[in-house]
């Protein structure tokens, strides 16, 4: 596969040379990057062969083909070519930009190149072009996946003649996504530090994850309100501000053979801006790029002042909820990690966004006035759903916390005189609950109190304890892994489905039981609290006494 891709790069040899790039060096860098990509997913202490494995990529490609197929349903449903193609190219740009941000941020900002490539006679242009080529190769393959099924639909709906322009405009869409993301990175890097950029990227990633989830949920609801067959879009000035419309406008121009000023303007933007943009970025920002990266490496070795005093919050809270010793130590470590580790935040924070969207869709959207919302919530007991959703955040945190890039630092668990590692697990579970549940739950509780009234107070208490019980049950039925002790590469994604099903079953049973009691025997609800406390205590005590033999290493 690599040879095929490198052969493809060879087709553009002349273009690279014209742009002042050292082609043999570029080819060497791209070849190594492709090789390390193939191997990155499969490093472990036990695997020591040179066997390449492209399964991870193939699975991603398959998912993208399925996503493209789903999108082609929309292309089929919408009559207006302008509207259907706007939706499709928006989807393509967002998907590519999202992949670029999630998969390639680390590669684009890889400072390991500073000590490996920068001391060699490689100029900034060549290094930047190599990185861009590497990224384009990867995205190009995924772009093909996303476009595959829509290409068939477009051919059958609008005729085979429209296929070449559809694909060419698809390439322009990918170029636009690369241009937008790269320009943003380079500009931020120019005016800011790498660390700040990584934070910004983290928030963009979280935002995009939430927007995508929200988009998939909300757009069908919005579109269902329109008569798609009759929909027709007239070109206005503001269309020029939206890149997907340039692309769709260009395809519409070709399809309808409608050569007017508006369409010519769209086509000019669609063709000219991505190409000229990438050339300009390569010419003006790329030389700055290598210089800036070099400086970044130096800064990272220079002595840095502490940005702020160490937060005392976890240490203060830990005094109230943990016993001195390993449990308290782990509480503070996990508490801080949940607040600081970008990768863990990226996994957890979008779930909070999803919950907000979930609430919006299922509780609020059909009700305009506050009274109507209140009536809807009280009648259907929707507030229970609100009170139990936080377990989704807790279960993600529980799954993610064992994995860390700094997993090697876990040697301290084994060198410390620890009789029962359960004490560490206990500190971990308490930190997850306190950090990710309590503060948010107080806000949720207040909202429920305002909407439902004082009668919901008992539900709030009972549901809080049930959230804790569910967290304990999930922790106990899963394999016991020590926090921050596992290599991220060995995370088994295949377990996601099973874990999700177990969580939903537990969540459904507990919420159902609560609903049942609230509906038929509401007076006994507070009588549950002592039982919950006793069960929580027993479960926690068992979990805390987990022995070394029960730990998965």
């Amino acid at each position: 596969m690599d040879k095929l891709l490198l052969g493809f790069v060879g087709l553009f040899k002349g273009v690279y040379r014209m742009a002042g790039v050292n082609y043999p060096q570029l080819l060497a860098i791209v070849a190594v990057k492709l090789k390390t990509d193939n191997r990155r997913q499969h490093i472990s202490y036990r695997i020591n062969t040179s066997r390449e494995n492209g399964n991870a990529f193939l699975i991603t490609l398959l998912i993208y083909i399925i996503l493209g197929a789903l999108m082609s349903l929309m292309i089929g449903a919408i009559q207006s070519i302008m509207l259907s193609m706007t939706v499709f190219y928006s989807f393509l740009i967002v998907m590519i930009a999202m992949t670029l941000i999630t998969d390639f941020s680390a590669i684009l900002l890889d400072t390991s190149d500073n000590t490996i490539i920068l001391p060699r006679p490689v100029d900034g242009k060549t290094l930047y072009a190599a990185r861009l080529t590497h990224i384009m190769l990867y995205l190009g393959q995924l772009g093909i996946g996303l476009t595959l099924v829509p290409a068939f639909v477009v051919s059958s709906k609008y005729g085979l003649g429209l296929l070449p322009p559809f694909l060419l405009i698809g390439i322009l869409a990918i170029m636009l996504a690369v241009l937008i993301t790269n320009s943003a990175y380079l500009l931020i890097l120019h005016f800011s530090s790498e660390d700040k950029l990584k934070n910004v990227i983290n928030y963009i990633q979280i935002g995009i994850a939430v927007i995508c989830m929200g988009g998939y949920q909300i757009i069908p609801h919005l579109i269902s309100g329109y008569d798609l067959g009759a929909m027709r879009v007239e070109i206005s000035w503001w269309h020029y501000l939206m890149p997907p419309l340039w692309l769709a406008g260009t395809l519409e121009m070709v399809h309808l053979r409608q050569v007017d000023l508006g369409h010519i303007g769209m086509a000019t933007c669609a063709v000219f801006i991505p190409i000229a943009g990438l050339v300009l970025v390569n010419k003006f920002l790329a030389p700055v790029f290598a210089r800036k990266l070099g400086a970044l490496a130096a800064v990272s070795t220079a002595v840095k002042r502490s940005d702020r005093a160490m937060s005392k919050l976890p240490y203060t809270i830990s005094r109230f909820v943990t016993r001195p010793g390993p449990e308290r130590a782990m509480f503070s470590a996990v508490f801080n990690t949940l607040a600081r580790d970008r990768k863990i935040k990226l996994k957890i924070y979008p779930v909070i966004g999803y919950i907000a969207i979930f609430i919006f869709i299922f509780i609020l959207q059909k009700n305009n006035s506050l009274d109507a919302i209140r009536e809807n919530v009280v009648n259907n007991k929707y507030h229970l759903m609100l009170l139990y959703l936080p377990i989704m955040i807790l279960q993600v945190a529980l799954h993610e916390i064992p994995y860390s890039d700094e997993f090697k630092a876990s040697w301290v668990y084994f060198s410390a005189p620890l009789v029962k590692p359960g004490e560490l697990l206990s500190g971990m579970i308490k930190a997850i609950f306190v950090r990710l549940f309590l503060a948010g739950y107080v806000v949720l509780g207040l909202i429920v109190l305002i909407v439902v009234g004082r009668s919901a107070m008992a539900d709030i208490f009972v549901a809080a304890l049930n959230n804790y019980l569910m967290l304990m049950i999930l922790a106990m039925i899963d394999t016991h892994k020590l926090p921050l002790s596992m290599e991220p590469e060995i995370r088994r994604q295949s377990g996601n489905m099973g874990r999700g099903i177990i969580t939903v079953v537990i969540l459904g049973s507990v919420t159902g039981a609560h609903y049942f009691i609230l509906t038929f025997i509401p007076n006994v609800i507070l009588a549950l609290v002592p039982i919950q406390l006793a069960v929580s205590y027993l479960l926690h005590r068992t979990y805390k006494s987990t022995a070394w033999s029960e730990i998965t290493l």
Partner: protein
Amino acid sequence: MEPVISTQNLSKKFSVYVLRNINLTVNAGEIIGYIGPNGAGKSTTIKILTGIISDFEGDARLLGMDIRKEPIEVKRRIGYIPENAALYDTLTPIEYLYFIGQLYGMDAKNVDTKSRELLHVFELSNHFNTRMSTFSKGMKQKVLLIAGMIHNPAVLFLDEPLSGLDANAVILVKEILMQLKRAGKTIFYSSHLMDVVEKISDRIIIINEGEMIANGTFEELNQHANGSLENIFTELTGNHAHESAAVEFLSILER
């Protein structure tokens, strides 16, 4: 004859100045020991001289070329062995060295042959096709040493090159450096290992808080403080309180 390395008022500022007015002159065939406490500015100096950092104040020339104006040509003629074992460790050493050779425009066959022979010298013959992710720190360091020299550079910059090496490898590297010197190569050697610096360096430069505080042969520096280079270093960097610090450390431990 023009010096191989020369700097005039070389300074570098990040948020504060980490290097101030460094004036260096290094001649062909010299081994320079470049020492200083942690955070003194040693690695920053090396990164400027190797063209990794290009925005600095003052002038820096290498082999007669302005580092700012001709960074690529300068990089072609130098070798750099960084402090941290930075390499693509999902590659095998053969693959990695082949990649490095290509960046210098070396002939593929030549790189392959040289790589195998050099790895053999460092007793890594059994690991030609093993991914470096499984290598120990010392094994990676050996690959880094080869990668820094495979193109036979005229000037060599070494930042803690003996880090993680076993005793035999340390002796071998020291011997290689002496042979390189005899072959007319210039070596800029930064380390915290005073005994090694003392033994191999023609001249020693001490840097402290971004400023050059001493520059001379071991004998010349010995006039400041009698004894080993360690004593001279302690004397010149103004850090005399080791014994009282150790006593304080112990008393804290025993609390």
